[in-house]
């Protein structure tokens, strides 16, 4: 494979385009609403109507507005049709004939769409995730070619560093710095690992990226491999994402067949292969040291750091671990330049962030916004507020490691530092909106139950502490607790946060601490008076 062959594939693909394209979302959300049948019926209707030369029915990834699926986007008229059923789908051909189909039309001028800025999701909903040619037609693998042919590994790292890209898994470590640490670590063998073990309740960004545009992640990984000097990559993806796994397998196979993965990529000295590793359902395996243990075939439990994976990772070799969204940003950075990327976002948080907008909000789905967009814009403008006009109470970000931002502080700009200041975290991108019917103690207990069940059991504070905190939260929720129980809870939160071995335990108290910080009254109004105080003031009679 060389540049001419790559361009030839692109030309051929573009030449085969037809006047009309019906893009049918076949990511998991729409698929579960029956979009595969929609696609089948559309294809049949096109064939029956003899429109095969005019109309292409294309499987694409996520079209964003998940709550209105199945979604079909019609090009070139640029119209989105929602809640398309298998029976009603053939009516879409009316549009091709110049009529108006009797189907619910989505408002593409709504802020939900206009406020989005797509870098990671640029191909999502556009390319066919199951065909590499479709990705190449969208300039796919061009960045990899240019990197390995025209740039030194050092220059690639400099570009990533200059872009200001930070890890999208949650902690926001500068990606370029991580790459450079791995590149400088000695050792003949190095690894690149993609963390696709997305596990936060309500989060589905990485799944959508993998289902919609798996090649962009592969391309990002291959560029990283070139930059740090690795020859083997692993994608650790959870077994609960069968479609993502299937499409990744397909993508790896297609890339290998074209010589884009394998030996001597694009005629350069770069050899790079990618293997999948399927997680068995443990949340803690999203923690990098546990993830590596799991890849090695051992029990997925974390170990103390240092040494960090960049120094001693898989089988003791220097290992680069980034998450799905981080890798998916890389090809665009190299294609458009680091300055372009650095011009988007805030001073310290560059680029965009993908969020899975869910909960008590009208428009649920996948959004990608520039860093620095306010929570209010996301929730009220894009999300359309709570259904039924209810008052929004809080927004939960960062899953079980994050916290709740109260409605009155929703003018905060979404970036790593601002959210941390509010006691929450950016996290991987789960965003759950809560309205006034939500009980904050119940929310805290839900997340504590999650952490209790997902604790690996290795260190005592997390294993036994989450059990006790869950018990105390239940006691408070049921109105059996006293002020002393609340004090015990706060003391345990502090202890578990500061003594646990890994991020799971260290952040497990966050949902409690953040709800205590902003909604303390909801805890206090449930407390009952201390029994011994009550008996002490009671006069002794008889």
């Amino acid at each position, binding site marked *: 494979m060389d540049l001419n062959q790559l361009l030839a594939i692109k030309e051929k693909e573009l030449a085969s385009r037809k006047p009309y394209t019906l893009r049918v979302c076949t990511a998991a959300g729409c698929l579960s609403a029956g979009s595969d049948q929609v696609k089948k019926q559309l294809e049949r209707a096109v064939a029956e109507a003899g429109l095969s030369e005019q109309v292409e029915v294309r499987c694409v990834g996520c079209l964003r507005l998940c709550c209105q699926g199945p979604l079909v986007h019609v090009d070139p008229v640029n119209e989105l049709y929602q809640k398309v059923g298998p029976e009603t789908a053939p009516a879409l051909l009316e549009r091709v004939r110049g009529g108006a189909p009797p189907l619910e039309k989505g408002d593409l001028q709504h802020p939900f769409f206009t406020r989005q800025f797509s870098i990671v999701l640029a191909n999502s909903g556009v390319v066919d995730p199951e065909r590499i040619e479709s990705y190449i037609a969208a300039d796919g693998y061009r960045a990899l070619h240019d990197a390995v042919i025209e740039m030194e590994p050092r220059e690639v790292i400099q570009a990533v560093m200059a872009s200001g890209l930070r890890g999208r898994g949650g902690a926001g470590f500068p990606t370029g710095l991580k790459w450079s640490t791995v590149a400088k670590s000695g050792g003949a063998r190095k690894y690149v690992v993609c963390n696709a073990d997305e596990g936060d309740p309500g989060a589905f960004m990485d799944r959508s990226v993998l289902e919609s545009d798996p090649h962009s992640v592969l391309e990002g990984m291959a560029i990283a491999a070139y930059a740090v000097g690795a020859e083997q990559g692993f994608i650790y993806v959870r077994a609960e994402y069968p479609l993502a796994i299937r499409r990744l397998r397909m993508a790896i196979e297609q890339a290998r067949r074209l010589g884009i993965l394998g030996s001597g990529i694009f005629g350069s000295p770069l050899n790079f292969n990618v293997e999948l590793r399927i997680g068995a359902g443990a949340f803690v395996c999203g923690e990098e040291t546990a993830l590596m243990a799991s890849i090695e075939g051992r*029990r997925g439990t974390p170990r103390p750091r240092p040494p960090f994976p960049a120094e001693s990772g898989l089988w003791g070799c220097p290992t680069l671990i980034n998450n799905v969204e981080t890798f998916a940003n890389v090809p665009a950075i190299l294609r458009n330049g680091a300055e372009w990327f650095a011009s988007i976002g805030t001073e310290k948080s560059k680029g965009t962030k993908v969020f899975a907008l869910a909960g008590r909000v009208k428009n649920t789905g996948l959004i990608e916004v520039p860093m620095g967009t306010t929570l209010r814009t996301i929730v009220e403008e894009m999300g359309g507020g709570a259904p039924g006009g209810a008052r929004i109470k809080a927004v939960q970000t960062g899953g079980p490691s994050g916290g709740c931002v109260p409605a009155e502080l929703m003018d905060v700009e979404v970036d790593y530092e601002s959210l941390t200041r509010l006691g929450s975290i950016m996290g991987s991108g789960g965003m759950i909106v809560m309205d006034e019917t939500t009980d904050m103690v119940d929310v805290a207990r839900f997340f504590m139950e999650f952490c*209790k069940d997902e*604790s690996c059991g290795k*260190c005592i504070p997390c294993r036994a502490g989450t059990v006790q905190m869950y018990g105390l939260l239940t006691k408070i929720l049921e109105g059996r607790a006293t002020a002393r129980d609340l004090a015990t809870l706060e003391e345990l939160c502090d*202890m578990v946060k500061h003594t646990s071995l890994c991020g799971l335990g260290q952040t497990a108290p966050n949902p409690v601490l953040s709800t205590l910080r902003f909604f303390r009254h909801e805890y206090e109004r449930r407390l009952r008076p201390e029994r011994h105080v009550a008996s002490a003031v009671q006069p002794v009679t008889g």
Partner: protein
Amino acid sequence: MAALTLTIDGKPVSAPAGTTVLEAAQDAGIRIPTLCHLEGVYDVGACRLCLVEVAGSNKLLPACTTQIAEGMEVWTDTDRLRKYRRMTLELLFAERNHVCSVCVSNGNCELQALAWEAGMDHVRYPYQHPQLEVDQTHPLFGMDHNRCILCTRCVRVCWHIEGAGTKNVAGRGADCRIITDLNQPWGESDSCTNCGKCVMACPTGALYYKGVTTGEMVRDRSKLEFIVTAREQKQWIA
């Protein structure tokens, strides 16, 4: 190897590079409480009792897996650490059914000794009282899960000193259990060599010789150290 100097609890200490904070402290006669640490096997940093404060670090670091650095300032016995240690011990006592008065290790138990040392005269958290099994199927040894603290010492000696790989951990969180082979009764294990190293390693009364009764279970840790020293340094020092 270059020697580094540091201070532990204000006391100047020197030790070779590569030494852990725990080793440096022990060498200088400073006691740091430990539970999952065992001489002879690698450390896992799981019990969190050996956490120390290091000036310049906002995180508490496990002494057993943290290597010393030049000029490091370590504090091992601050009010905060004492409080956390006591809470950790309380959490352990509340987690399973630790009843010293009927335990084979009463008086010879590391957990009991640490609780005594920490001044833990009562437990403030509700006891979980889990229903747990006692495995008496092995001809020589018994395993009482009620007294297990999941320190994984038995697992580590089984894999890395004996090389049998019989013991392992199954489940997660509070449901973690030490298992033998594929979670079958110990007596039916094909891989167990009956060496008894796990019993020697156990800090509580979870693993014991059959036939011992309350307070009779005394362990000889020097045998483990003897084997490791012999193997690694080719020295037969009893």
